[in-house]
Protein backbone atom coordinates (compact mmCIF):
# COMPACT_ATOMS: atom_id res chain seq x y z
CA UNK A 1 0.00 0.00 0.00
CA UNK A 2 2.67 2.64 0.91
CA UNK A 3 4.48 2.15 -2.42
CA UNK A 4 1.19 2.59 -4.23
CA UNK A 5 0.42 5.73 -2.24
CA UNK A 6 3.79 7.23 -3.18
CA UNK A 7 3.08 6.55 -6.81
CA UNK A 8 -0.35 8.19 -6.81
CA UNK A 9 0.24 11.03 -4.35
CA UNK A 10 3.82 11.88 -3.48
CA UNK A 11 5.22 11.59 -7.00
CA UNK A 12 2.57 13.77 -8.65
CA UNK A 13 2.80 16.21 -5.73
CA UNK A 14 6.53 16.68 -6.25
CA UNK A 15 6.21 16.73 -10.03
CA UNK A 16 3.46 19.32 -10.14
CA UNK A 17 5.26 21.54 -7.64
CA UNK A 18 8.38 21.38 -9.78
CA UNK A 19 6.94 21.45 -13.28
CA UNK A 20 4.32 24.17 -13.00
CA UNK A 21 6.75 26.82 -11.67
CA UNK A 22 9.25 25.55 -14.23
CA UNK A 23 6.71 26.18 -16.99
CA UNK A 24 6.26 29.75 -15.78
CA UNK A 25 10.00 30.27 -15.73
CA UNK A 26 10.50 28.75 -19.17
CA UNK A 27 7.58 30.63 -20.67
CA UNK A 28 8.75 34.03 -19.51
CA UNK A 29 12.54 33.67 -19.42
CA UNK A 30 13.39 31.19 -22.13
CA UNK A 31 10.92 31.25 -24.99
CA UNK A 32 11.00 34.21 -27.31
CA UNK A 33 8.09 36.56 -27.81
CA UNK A 34 5.53 35.49 -30.39
CA UNK A 35 5.82 37.62 -33.51
CA UNK A 36 2.05 38.24 -33.81
CA UNK A 37 0.73 38.17 -30.30
CA UNK A 38 3.66 39.21 -28.13
CA UNK A 39 3.40 38.68 -24.40
CA UNK A 40 -0.22 37.51 -24.42
CA UNK A 41 0.81 34.35 -26.23
CA UNK A 42 2.43 33.11 -22.98
CA UNK A 43 -0.95 31.96 -21.73
CA UNK A 44 -0.81 29.32 -24.43
CA UNK A 45 1.54 27.27 -22.20
CA UNK A 46 -1.21 27.05 -19.59
CA UNK A 47 -4.48 27.27 -21.48
CA UNK A 48 -3.79 24.44 -23.91
CA UNK A 49 -2.23 21.98 -21.40
CA UNK A 50 -5.17 22.66 -19.05
CA UNK A 51 -7.60 21.90 -21.88
CA UNK A 52 -5.81 18.66 -22.79
CA UNK A 53 -5.63 17.64 -19.12
CA UNK A 54 -9.33 18.22 -18.83
CA UNK A 55 -9.97 15.84 -21.74
CA UNK A 56 -7.72 13.24 -20.13
CA UNK A 57 -9.69 13.52 -16.88
CA UNK A 58 -13.04 13.21 -18.70
CA UNK A 59 -11.65 10.21 -20.57
CA UNK A 60 -10.51 8.65 -17.30
CA UNK A 61 -14.01 9.24 -15.89
CA UNK A 62 -15.61 7.55 -18.90
CA UNK A 63 -13.27 4.55 -18.78
CA UNK A 64 -13.99 4.08 -15.08
CA UNK A 65 -17.72 4.41 -15.83
CA UNK A 66 -17.45 1.57 -18.34
CA UNK A 67 -15.51 -0.44 -15.76
CA UNK A 68 -18.29 0.22 -13.25
CA UNK A 69 -20.96 -1.11 -15.60
CA UNK A 70 -18.83 -4.19 -16.13
CA UNK A 71 -17.69 -4.89 -12.56
CA UNK A 72 -20.44 -3.15 -10.57
CA UNK A 73 -18.22 -2.26 -7.65
CA UNK A 74 -18.50 1.07 -5.84
CA UNK A 75 -14.79 1.78 -6.25
CA UNK A 76 -15.16 2.25 -10.03
CA UNK A 77 -18.13 4.55 -9.56
CA UNK A 78 -16.08 6.66 -7.16
CA UNK A 79 -13.14 6.81 -9.59
CA UNK A 80 -15.44 7.80 -12.43
CA UNK A 81 -17.04 10.56 -10.37
CA UNK A 82 -13.70 11.91 -9.14
CA UNK A 83 -12.28 11.85 -12.69
CA UNK A 84 -15.19 13.88 -14.01
CA UNK A 85 -15.01 16.19 -11.03
CA UNK A 86 -11.38 17.05 -11.70
CA UNK A 87 -12.12 17.28 -15.44
CA UNK A 88 -14.75 19.88 -14.64
CA UNK A 89 -12.30 21.83 -12.45
CA UNK A 90 -9.79 21.96 -15.31
CA UNK A 91 -12.64 22.71 -17.73
CA UNK A 92 -13.60 25.72 -15.64
CA UNK A 93 -9.98 26.92 -15.81
CA UNK A 94 -10.14 26.61 -19.61
CA UNK A 95 -13.21 28.80 -19.63
CA UNK A 96 -11.35 31.35 -17.48
CA UNK A 97 -8.00 31.34 -19.30
CA UNK A 98 -9.67 31.27 -22.74
CA UNK A 99 -11.45 34.61 -22.41
CA UNK A 100 -8.32 36.21 -20.90
CA UNK A 101 -6.41 35.19 -23.99
CA UNK A 102 -9.25 36.28 -26.25
CA UNK A 103 -9.39 39.70 -24.57
CA UNK A 104 -5.65 40.20 -25.02
CA UNK A 105 -5.59 38.94 -28.61
CA UNK A 106 -8.84 40.20 -30.07
CA UNK A 107 -10.07 42.71 -27.51
CA UNK A 108 -13.21 40.72 -26.76
CA UNK A 109 -13.86 38.39 -23.81
CA UNK A 110 -15.58 35.75 -25.84
CA UNK A 111 -14.82 34.77 -29.39
CA UNK A 112 -17.47 32.51 -30.89
CA UNK A 113 -14.96 31.61 -33.56
CA UNK A 114 -12.62 29.84 -31.15
CA UNK A 115 -13.42 26.18 -31.67
CA UNK A 116 -11.79 24.91 -28.50
CA UNK A 117 -13.62 27.42 -26.35
CA UNK A 118 -17.00 26.64 -27.89
CA UNK A 119 -16.55 22.91 -27.40
CA UNK A 120 -15.64 23.54 -23.79
CA UNK A 121 -18.76 25.58 -23.31
CA UNK A 122 -20.85 22.61 -24.49
CA UNK A 123 -18.87 20.18 -22.34
CA UNK A 124 -19.13 22.44 -19.33
CA UNK A 125 -22.93 22.50 -19.61
CA UNK A 126 -22.95 18.75 -20.14
CA UNK A 127 -20.75 17.85 -17.18
CA UNK A 128 -22.63 20.25 -14.91
CA UNK A 129 -25.72 18.24 -15.92
CA UNK A 130 -23.81 15.11 -14.84
CA UNK A 131 -23.55 16.51 -11.33
CA UNK A 132 -27.21 17.50 -11.33
CA UNK A 133 -28.21 13.99 -12.39
CA UNK A 134 -26.01 12.42 -9.78
CA UNK A 135 -27.28 14.53 -6.93
CA UNK A 136 -30.96 14.21 -7.85
CA UNK A 137 -30.86 10.44 -7.51
CA UNK A 138 -30.73 8.65 -4.18
CA UNK A 139 -27.47 6.93 -3.38
CA UNK A 140 -27.54 3.37 -4.65
CA UNK A 141 -27.19 1.10 -7.67
CA UNK A 142 -29.52 3.17 -9.80
CA UNK A 143 -27.59 6.39 -9.23
CA UNK A 144 -24.28 4.74 -9.95
CA UNK A 145 -25.54 3.12 -13.17
CA UNK A 146 -27.23 6.32 -14.39
CA UNK A 147 -24.10 8.38 -13.68
CA UNK A 148 -21.95 5.84 -15.48
CA UNK A 149 -24.16 5.80 -18.58
CA UNK A 150 -24.32 9.59 -18.70
CA UNK A 151 -20.53 9.78 -18.32
CA UNK A 152 -20.16 7.36 -21.23
CA UNK A 153 -22.34 9.56 -23.45
CA UNK A 154 -19.53 12.11 -23.15
CA UNK A 155 -17.41 9.79 -25.31
CA UNK A 156 -19.87 10.50 -28.10
CA UNK A 157 -20.48 14.13 -27.27
CA UNK A 158 -16.85 15.32 -27.29
CA UNK A 159 -16.04 14.34 -30.90
CA UNK A 160 -19.55 15.25 -32.05
CA UNK A 161 -19.20 18.74 -30.56
CA UNK A 162 -15.86 19.20 -32.29
CA UNK A 163 -17.31 18.15 -35.63
CA UNK A 164 -20.45 20.22 -35.19
CA UNK A 165 -18.53 23.35 -34.26
CA UNK A 166 -16.20 22.80 -37.22
CA UNK A 167 -19.08 22.30 -39.67
CA UNK A 168 -20.93 25.36 -38.45
CA UNK A 169 -17.74 27.41 -38.34
CA UNK A 170 -16.45 27.01 -41.87
CA UNK A 171 -19.48 29.08 -42.67
CA UNK A 172 -19.76 31.60 -39.87
CA UNK A 173 -16.06 32.30 -39.36
CA UNK A 174 -14.05 31.69 -42.48
CA UNK A 175 -10.73 32.48 -40.80
CA UNK A 176 -9.93 30.13 -37.99
CA UNK A 177 -7.27 30.90 -35.46
CA UNK A 178 -5.11 27.90 -34.68
CA UNK A 179 -2.85 27.94 -31.66
CA UNK A 180 0.68 26.76 -32.21
CA UNK A 181 0.52 24.41 -35.12
CA UNK A 182 3.30 22.32 -36.57
CA UNK A 183 5.69 25.21 -37.06
CA UNK A 184 6.38 25.82 -33.37
CA UNK A 185 10.01 26.55 -32.48
CA UNK A 186 11.61 23.92 -30.27
CA UNK A 187 11.67 26.16 -27.20
CA UNK A 188 7.90 26.69 -27.54
CA UNK A 189 7.29 22.99 -27.94
CA UNK A 190 9.44 21.97 -24.98
CA UNK A 191 7.82 24.54 -22.69
CA UNK A 192 4.42 23.30 -23.83
CA UNK A 193 5.36 19.69 -23.06
CA UNK A 194 6.65 20.64 -19.60
CA UNK A 195 3.43 22.58 -18.99
CA UNK A 196 1.36 19.60 -20.04
CA UNK A 197 3.31 17.23 -17.79
CA UNK A 198 2.84 19.63 -14.88
CA UNK A 199 -0.91 19.88 -15.39
CA UNK A 200 -1.26 16.11 -15.77
CA UNK A 201 0.63 15.60 -12.51
CA UNK A 202 -1.67 18.07 -10.83
CA UNK A 203 -4.66 16.14 -12.16
CA UNK A 204 -3.34 12.82 -10.84
CA UNK A 205 -2.73 14.50 -7.50
CA UNK A 206 -6.23 15.97 -7.34
CA UNK A 207 -7.82 12.66 -8.28
CA UNK A 208 -5.87 10.59 -5.80
CA UNK A 209 -6.36 13.03 -2.93
CA UNK A 210 -10.10 13.27 -3.53
CA UNK A 211 -10.37 9.51 -3.91
CA UNK A 212 -8.58 9.01 -0.62
CA UNK A 213 -11.02 11.37 1.08
CA UNK A 214 -13.99 9.53 -0.44
CA UNK A 215 -12.59 6.15 0.58
CA UNK A 216 -12.09 7.33 4.13
CA UNK A 217 -15.64 8.69 4.27
CA UNK A 218 -17.00 5.39 2.95
CA UNK A 219 -14.95 3.46 5.49
CA UNK A 220 -16.25 5.64 8.34
CA UNK A 221 -19.82 5.05 7.18
CA UNK A 222 -19.17 1.33 7.04
CA UNK A 223 -17.70 1.32 10.56
CA UNK A 224 -20.72 3.24 11.84
CA UNK A 225 -22.94 0.58 10.34
CA UNK A 226 -20.94 -2.20 11.93
CA UNK A 227 -21.27 -0.36 15.22
CA UNK A 228 -25.03 -0.26 14.75
CA UNK A 229 -24.90 -4.01 14.21
CA UNK A 230 -25.83 -3.85 10.53
CA UNK A 231 -22.46 -5.05 9.20
CA UNK A 232 -23.54 -5.10 5.57
Amino acid at each position, binding site marked *: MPANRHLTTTVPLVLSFLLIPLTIAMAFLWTGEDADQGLSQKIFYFHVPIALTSYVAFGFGAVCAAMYLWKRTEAWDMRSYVGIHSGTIFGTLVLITGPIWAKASWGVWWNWGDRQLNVFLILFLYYCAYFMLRFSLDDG*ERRRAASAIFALLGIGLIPMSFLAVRIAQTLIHPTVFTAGGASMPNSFLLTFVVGLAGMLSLMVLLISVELRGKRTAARVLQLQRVQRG*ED*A
Partner: protein
Amino acid sequence: MQPPEITLVECSKRFGDRLALRKATLSIAAGETVVLLGPNGAGKSTLLRLVAGLLRPTAGSARIGDVEAIAAPKAVRAGIAYAGHAPQLYRGLTARENLDLHLRLHTTTADTGALLERVGLGDRADERIDGFSRGMLQRLALARATAHAPVLLLLDEPASGLDADGRALLDDTLRAAIGTRTQVVASHDHELAARLGVREVRLDNGGIA
Protein backbone atom coordinates in the same frame (compact mmCIF):
# COMPACT_ATOMS: atom_id res chain seq x y z
CA MET B 1 -40.40 -25.59 -18.37
CA GLN B 2 -39.59 -26.99 -14.93
CA PRO B 3 -40.29 -24.87 -11.83
CA PRO B 4 -37.00 -23.48 -10.45
CA GLU B 5 -35.70 -23.55 -6.91
CA ILE B 6 -34.98 -20.25 -5.19
CA THR B 7 -31.87 -19.68 -3.08
CA LEU B 8 -31.04 -16.61 -1.04
CA VAL B 9 -27.63 -16.61 0.61
CA GLU B 10 -26.91 -13.84 3.14
CA CYS B 11 -28.76 -11.51 0.83
CA SER B 12 -28.87 -7.84 1.89
CA LYS B 13 -30.38 -4.79 0.25
CA ARG B 14 -29.70 -1.23 1.31
CA PHE B 15 -31.64 1.84 0.20
CA GLY B 16 -29.59 4.90 1.14
CA ASP B 17 -29.11 4.62 4.85
CA ARG B 18 -31.86 2.08 5.39
CA LEU B 19 -31.17 -1.64 5.39
CA ALA B 20 -34.36 -3.12 3.91
CA LEU B 21 -33.15 -6.69 3.97
CA ARG B 22 -30.34 -7.99 6.14
CA LYS B 23 -28.47 -11.21 5.43
CA ALA B 24 -31.53 -13.18 4.47
CA THR B 25 -30.84 -16.86 3.84
CA LEU B 26 -33.69 -18.91 2.49
CA SER B 27 -34.18 -21.80 0.14
CA ILE B 28 -37.40 -22.68 -1.57
CA ALA B 29 -37.62 -26.03 -3.30
CA ALA B 30 -38.69 -26.38 -6.91
CA GLY B 31 -42.46 -26.36 -7.04
CA GLU B 32 -42.82 -25.29 -3.42
CA THR B 33 -45.27 -22.59 -2.31
CA VAL B 34 -44.20 -20.24 0.49
CA VAL B 35 -46.16 -17.53 2.27
CA LEU B 36 -44.12 -14.53 3.47
CA LEU B 37 -45.55 -12.94 6.59
CA GLY B 38 -44.45 -9.84 8.43
CA PRO B 39 -45.47 -6.30 9.35
CA ASN B 40 -45.21 -3.39 6.89
CA GLY B 41 -41.58 -2.54 6.21
CA ALA B 42 -40.37 -5.99 7.22
CA GLY B 43 -38.70 -6.48 3.84
CA LYS B 44 -41.24 -8.72 2.09
CA SER B 45 -41.52 -6.58 -1.04
CA THR B 46 -37.75 -6.11 -1.21
CA LEU B 47 -37.25 -9.87 -0.99
CA LEU B 48 -39.75 -10.50 -3.79
CA ARG B 49 -38.18 -7.86 -6.02
CA LEU B 50 -34.72 -9.33 -5.40
CA VAL B 51 -35.98 -12.78 -6.39
CA ALA B 52 -37.66 -11.32 -9.47
CA GLY B 53 -34.33 -9.76 -10.48
CA LEU B 54 -35.74 -6.23 -10.33
CA LEU B 55 -33.30 -5.27 -7.58
CA ARG B 56 -29.61 -5.98 -7.30
CA PRO B 57 -28.49 -7.27 -3.88
CA THR B 58 -26.16 -4.94 -1.98
CA ALA B 59 -24.42 -8.06 -0.65
CA GLY B 60 -24.99 -11.77 -0.88
CA SER B 61 -26.92 -13.45 -3.64
CA ALA B 62 -30.44 -14.28 -4.79
CA ARG B 63 -30.59 -17.10 -7.31
CA ILE B 64 -33.27 -18.62 -9.50
CA GLY B 65 -32.12 -22.18 -10.18
CA ASP B 66 -28.42 -21.67 -10.75
CA VAL B 67 -28.44 -18.13 -12.17
CA GLU B 68 -28.28 -14.84 -10.28
CA ALA B 69 -31.76 -13.32 -10.44
CA ILE B 70 -30.48 -9.88 -11.52
CA ALA B 71 -28.68 -11.44 -14.47
CA ALA B 72 -31.46 -13.86 -15.44
CA PRO B 73 -31.36 -14.44 -19.19
CA LYS B 74 -34.46 -14.08 -21.34
CA ALA B 75 -35.21 -17.81 -21.19
CA VAL B 76 -35.44 -17.64 -17.40
CA ARG B 77 -37.36 -14.34 -17.37
CA ALA B 78 -39.95 -15.93 -19.66
CA GLY B 79 -40.96 -18.22 -16.79
CA ILE B 80 -41.20 -15.54 -14.09
CA ALA B 81 -44.35 -13.67 -13.12
CA TYR B 82 -44.30 -10.87 -10.58
CA ALA B 83 -47.27 -8.83 -9.41
CA GLY B 84 -46.37 -6.00 -7.05
CA HIS B 85 -48.29 -3.17 -5.42
CA ALA B 86 -48.74 -1.35 -8.71
CA PRO B 87 -50.94 -3.23 -11.19
CA GLN B 88 -48.26 -3.01 -13.96
CA LEU B 89 -50.95 -2.17 -16.48
CA TYR B 90 -51.30 0.73 -18.92
CA ARG B 91 -54.16 2.85 -17.61
CA GLY B 92 -55.16 4.11 -21.05
CA LEU B 93 -55.59 0.62 -22.55
CA THR B 94 -58.46 -1.81 -22.17
CA ALA B 95 -58.17 -5.00 -20.12
CA ARG B 96 -57.86 -7.05 -23.29
CA GLU B 97 -55.25 -4.76 -24.86
CA ASN B 98 -53.17 -4.98 -21.70
CA LEU B 99 -53.22 -8.77 -21.79
CA ASP B 100 -52.53 -8.80 -25.52
CA LEU B 101 -49.42 -6.68 -25.06
CA HIS B 102 -48.25 -8.89 -22.23
CA LEU B 103 -48.67 -12.05 -24.31
CA ARG B 104 -47.03 -10.39 -27.29
CA LEU B 105 -43.95 -9.48 -25.25
CA HIS B 106 -43.81 -13.07 -23.99
CA THR B 107 -44.12 -14.27 -27.59
CA THR B 108 -46.92 -16.57 -26.62
CA THR B 109 -50.63 -16.74 -27.30
CA ALA B 110 -53.60 -17.50 -25.09
CA ASP B 111 -57.34 -17.00 -25.15
CA THR B 112 -57.57 -13.56 -23.53
CA GLY B 113 -61.37 -13.83 -23.41
CA ALA B 114 -61.18 -17.02 -21.34
CA LEU B 115 -58.47 -15.55 -19.09
CA LEU B 116 -60.61 -12.51 -18.35
CA GLU B 117 -63.69 -14.68 -17.89
CA ARG B 118 -61.85 -16.73 -15.30
CA VAL B 119 -61.04 -13.69 -13.15
CA GLY B 120 -64.62 -12.42 -13.52
CA LEU B 121 -63.87 -9.58 -15.96
CA GLY B 122 -65.42 -11.19 -19.04
CA ASP B 123 -67.99 -8.44 -19.56
CA ARG B 124 -65.50 -5.61 -18.95
CA ALA B 125 -62.83 -6.90 -21.32
CA ASP B 126 -63.04 -3.97 -23.72
CA GLU B 127 -63.29 -1.19 -21.18
CA ARG B 128 -60.36 1.06 -20.47
CA ILE B 129 -58.95 0.18 -17.09
CA ASP B 130 -58.66 3.74 -15.77
CA GLY B 131 -62.27 3.25 -14.65
CA PHE B 132 -61.55 -0.01 -12.82
CA SER B 133 -61.80 -0.35 -9.04
CA ARG B 134 -58.85 -1.53 -6.92
CA GLY B 135 -60.29 -5.04 -6.74
CA MET B 136 -60.85 -5.25 -10.49
CA LEU B 137 -57.30 -4.10 -11.16
CA GLN B 138 -56.06 -6.73 -8.73
CA ARG B 139 -58.03 -9.40 -10.60
CA LEU B 140 -56.63 -8.24 -13.91
CA ALA B 141 -53.14 -8.20 -12.44
CA LEU B 142 -53.65 -11.82 -11.41
CA ALA B 143 -54.82 -12.72 -14.90
CA ARG B 144 -51.76 -10.97 -16.36
CA ALA B 145 -49.37 -12.69 -13.95
CA THR B 146 -50.64 -16.16 -14.85
CA ALA B 147 -51.36 -15.57 -18.56
CA HIS B 148 -47.99 -16.78 -19.86
CA ALA B 149 -48.02 -19.99 -17.76
CA PRO B 150 -45.10 -19.00 -15.50
CA VAL B 151 -43.14 -21.55 -13.49
CA LEU B 152 -42.20 -18.98 -10.83
CA LEU B 153 -45.00 -16.81 -9.44
CA LEU B 154 -44.17 -13.93 -7.10
CA LEU B 155 -47.15 -12.11 -5.61
CA ASP B 156 -46.96 -9.09 -3.33
CA GLU B 157 -50.11 -8.78 -1.17
CA PRO B 158 -52.36 -10.02 -3.98
CA ALA B 159 -55.46 -10.03 -1.78
CA SER B 160 -55.53 -6.31 -1.03
CA GLY B 161 -58.70 -4.77 -2.44
CA LEU B 162 -60.20 -8.15 -3.36
CA ASP B 163 -63.71 -9.14 -2.27
CA ALA B 164 -64.60 -12.61 -0.91
CA ASP B 165 -65.03 -14.07 -4.42
CA GLY B 166 -61.72 -12.61 -5.50
CA ARG B 167 -59.91 -14.06 -2.50
CA ALA B 168 -61.41 -17.49 -3.22
CA LEU B 169 -60.20 -17.16 -6.83
CA LEU B 170 -56.72 -16.28 -5.59
CA ASP B 171 -56.67 -19.27 -3.22
CA ASP B 172 -57.77 -21.56 -6.04
CA THR B 173 -55.13 -20.19 -8.38
CA LEU B 174 -52.39 -20.76 -5.82
CA ARG B 175 -53.68 -24.17 -4.70
CA ALA B 176 -54.00 -25.50 -8.24
CA ALA B 177 -50.31 -24.91 -8.93
CA ILE B 178 -48.79 -26.30 -5.74
CA GLY B 179 -46.08 -28.72 -6.78
CA THR B 180 -45.99 -27.59 -10.40
CA ARG B 181 -45.01 -23.97 -9.92
CA THR B 182 -42.66 -22.30 -7.43
CA GLN B 183 -44.77 -19.66 -5.69
CA VAL B 184 -43.85 -16.96 -3.18
CA VAL B 185 -46.69 -14.88 -1.78
CA ALA B 186 -46.22 -11.90 0.54
CA SER B 187 -49.34 -11.53 2.62
CA HIS B 188 -50.91 -10.21 5.80
CA ASP B 189 -53.30 -13.17 5.87
CA HIS B 190 -52.18 -15.35 8.77
CA GLU B 191 -54.42 -18.21 7.74
CA LEU B 192 -53.30 -18.38 4.10
CA ALA B 193 -50.46 -20.85 4.65
CA ALA B 194 -52.70 -23.10 6.75
CA ARG B 195 -55.50 -22.97 4.17
CA LEU B 196 -53.10 -23.96 1.41
CA GLY B 197 -51.17 -26.38 3.62
CA VAL B 198 -47.79 -24.79 2.80
CA ARG B 199 -44.78 -23.38 4.64
CA GLU B 200 -44.75 -19.85 5.98
CA VAL B 201 -41.69 -17.67 6.46
CA ARG B 202 -41.72 -14.73 8.86
CA LEU B 203 -39.80 -11.58 8.18
CA ASP B 204 -39.21 -8.91 10.75
CA ASN B 205 -37.22 -5.69 10.45
CA GLY B 206 -35.43 -6.88 7.34
CA GLY B 207 -34.41 -10.27 8.70
CA ILE B 208 -35.87 -13.75 8.45
CA ALA B 209 -37.22 -14.58 11.90
